[in-house]
């Protein structure tokens, strides 16, 4: 599999259209890889493809919105949905990207157990056999577990989690749906989000971010992977997705590049519960 990807990268460089390609490279630790930015044929040698390629490669393209040449990205299933997410949010232009899709074989990441799209949804060239996809029954297991608790138990469960949060904003910086130019949390003058590190401020941050990305979350699991304090962040956005599923019909985000998020739409015969 790795050679096919390397050939694809070399072919991309030969075509001359691609400035650099984002992939993974080994680190001194066997069980970790770090994103690799290949600029020329020699860099392609450093490319690795193993079960530790857990970093998402898609969001780095956001930092280079006006590239001279195309940006090449090696996409697993979830990365392709991240690219689709950013394109439909108009933050990336499809013509600036050269996408090398690789059918994913599942990585060392708990989210891969409930992955429903191992085959990339958007690519210029595809490597590997597309697999049949279906939504995993475990998708909302975590949400149902919390739903089974009483309100007080739920609050205490979350209070402990948000006591741990150190507000390093890694979950925001890795999330493809969090693609604002300037995050609300950085606009201290407006006063949405205080700077203090306490449970209440952390809860405000946690809930606000869940609401902001809830209807556009592509369930790539990066937020939970990067959180140094292992907070169950995915269960917040998945709660939103579960409600959207129940209320407005089955949804999976980041599958197409013109996707209308649910909160941007309305439907006259939505359920009426505020009469």
């Amino acid at each position, binding site marked *: 599999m790795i050679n096919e990807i390397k050939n694809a990268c070399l072919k991309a460089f030969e075509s001359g259209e691609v400035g650099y390609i984002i992939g993974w490279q080994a680190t001194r630790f066997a069980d970790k890889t770090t994103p690799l930015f290949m600029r020329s044929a020699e860099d392609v040698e450093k490319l690795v493809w193993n079960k530790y390629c857990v970093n998402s490669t898609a969001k780095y393209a956001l930092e280079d*919105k*006006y590239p001279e040449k195309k940006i090449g990205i090696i996409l697993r299933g979830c990365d392709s949905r991240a690219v689709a997410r950013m394109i439909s*949010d*108009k*933050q990336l232009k499809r013509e600036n990207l050269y996408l090398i899709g690789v059918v994913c074989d599942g990585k060392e990441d708990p989210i891969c157990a409930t992955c429903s799209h191992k085959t990339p949804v958007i690519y210029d060239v595809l490597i590997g056999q597309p697999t049949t996809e279906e939504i995993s029954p475990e998708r909302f297991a975590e949400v149902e577990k919390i739903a089974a608790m009483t309100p007080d138990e739920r609050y205490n469960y979350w209070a402990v989690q948000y006591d741990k949060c150190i507000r390093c904003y890694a979950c925001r910086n890795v999330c493809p749906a969090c*693609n*604002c*130019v*300037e*995050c*609300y949390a950085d*606009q201290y*003058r*407006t*006063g*949405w989000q205080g700077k203090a590190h306490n449970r209440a401020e952390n809860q405000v941050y946690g809930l606000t971010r869940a609401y*902001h990305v809830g209807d556009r979350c592509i369930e790539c699991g990066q937020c939970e992977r990067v959180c140094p304090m292992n907070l169950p962040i995915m269960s917040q956005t998945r709660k939103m997705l579960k409600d959207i599923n129940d209320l407005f019909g089955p949804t999976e985000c980041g599958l197409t590049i013109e996707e*209308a*998020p649910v*909160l*941007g*739409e309305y439907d006259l015969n939505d359920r009426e519960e505020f009469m």
Partner: protein
Amino acid sequence: MSRVGVFVCHCGTNIAQTVDVERVAEAAKSFPGVVYSSTYKYMCSEPGQAMIKETIEKENLDRIVICSCTPRMHEVTFRKMLKGTKINPYQLEIANIREQCSWVHTDKEKATEKAINLARMSVAKVLLNEPLHTSSIPITKRALVIGGGIAGIQAALDIADAGHEVVLVEKESSIGGKMAMLDKTFPTLDCSACISTPKMVDVSQHPNITLMTSSEIESVGGYVGNFDVTIRQKAKYVNHDICTGCGLCETKCPTKVISEFNQGLAKRPAIGKMYAQAVPAKPVIDPNACRKLIDGKCGLCAKLCPLGCINFEDEDKLVTEKFGAIVVATGYQLIEWGELYPEYGGGKYKDVITGLQFERLVNASGPSEGHILRPSDNTEPKTIVIIKCVGSRDPKKGKSYCSRACCMYGAKHAHQILDKIPGAKVVTFYIDVRTPGKNYEEFYDNTRHDGAIYVRGRVSKIYEEDGKLICLGEDSLLARKVAVKADMVVLETAMVPAVGIRELAGMLGIAVDNHGWVTEAHPKLRPVETQTGGVFLCGVCQGPKDIPDTVAQAGAAASKVIGLLNKDSMETSPMISKVDESKCAGCGFCVKMCPYKAITLEDIDVRQGPKTVKKTVAKINGGLCQGCGACNVACRTGCIELLGFKNNQILEEVDSLCL
């Protein structure tokens, strides 16, 4: 640090009775930013306002909070008052301590406590109020009326009479619309031509009205007061400037095609006026009928024309003009009943005609000069069946709505038949007879008195048998089957919106319902306005109606346009949304949410390091934005904010409640 003044009103005893106003004023002094607070018996009265103005000067206040009745009552009053002072009228907040405090609570202690909370919330918000200024957008004093039927004509005349320039655009080669086709109009039975042609002539001679026939709207841009509309003037192939309308070409033209004006009952030449009393009374060549234009032969009319007006190389012209207001008066057409009702012969039987075809038969300037003759063999029919609600009130086959006017013009047709054919027998099949106007019921009674037979029931099948049209139906009042051997059948078919209304609505940004009727701003309270500022509507394009209602609506729409055009500029409300372009990511989530399509994504030049690049940002059109604030919530970054209700203002209000 800002200097806030708090003024607590007694409102006689309305507030003072259950709210200790002195304590509220006292407590207000401790709020951050408040430097002065006092109470007065009637704050909204002249002395009250004078006291406030004087205090503003004396205490050098820069924002004020008035605790009184509902802002929906006196916000305007106090803003007008502030116009006279150095404080911007929008540096004002009103705490509602009457309708939502003193009047609805009994316990004085708790009511005062709540009044203090409400005052604190208002002070917290006023500290963040910025001075706002109404901006004004210029108004082009020109109106565009789309559609030359009686609705468009009446609206254009009223607007022009008020001294404003009007452009009347009509798709056909002449104005007059459906009314020009009619013979008589109910309930007064005065001749349709006699009351509409004078108005048409007025239109052509009115100095303020520019008439553009054979023209259609190509595209609409801009917004209220500043629409720039591109109009496609279709090729007429006749130079109307020099043509005198002598009609020589018309008589000599060899090709004969079906006349749409006469609803297919007669033929017309390829060149000619739409009908005798057409305005402008000048011929036009029909490109899909004229042999010269189709395969280059003939060209007789060009040879014959004494003034050489004919020009076969004429092309469509696109004209773009600026308008302040637009009136949609596109009218209606009759439903295509052929495919919907095969059981009535589906158009096979010549003598099964529609109401408009009957109007052409009975019209003196019609193909049969007013004699009611059977189109099949031109003999005078003795027994005529009129069938109402063909396509109307029939959700399965046609339209679910009632077309309102057919009951009356059905009765009129019966009356005309009994009048013109002595000894004729008229059988009208109906579901209900609806006579919703002045002298309508009396007209219907006279018709029945004249001998028209009204049978309550629907006709199930019409078939031809030895020259007669057998109408099988039922009389549901007598519960028995009925078969009428008729010579002619008149179907009163449903009204449907004019062709192309959906594309036009799309261009104007107005909505149409699922049938295609234009959606008015409010069915009862704003019937002639639409959701888009500066676009008005009148006549049947809004829904089926008869001529009296149409003319009334035309006058109403005209008055709205005149109201708009009388002003040189239009004040836009200052409480509209504003975009902070440095933070805008151009994601477009706000664009879809705006009900008034006031937000567009545009590219602006932005320096990024050494390069300048194109960045997409949202831009708000002040004229269209009504200040609802939906876009504020769509924007995750919070860079689009409604002035007067900015995020930090509402957050301060929320924070100040529980201090």
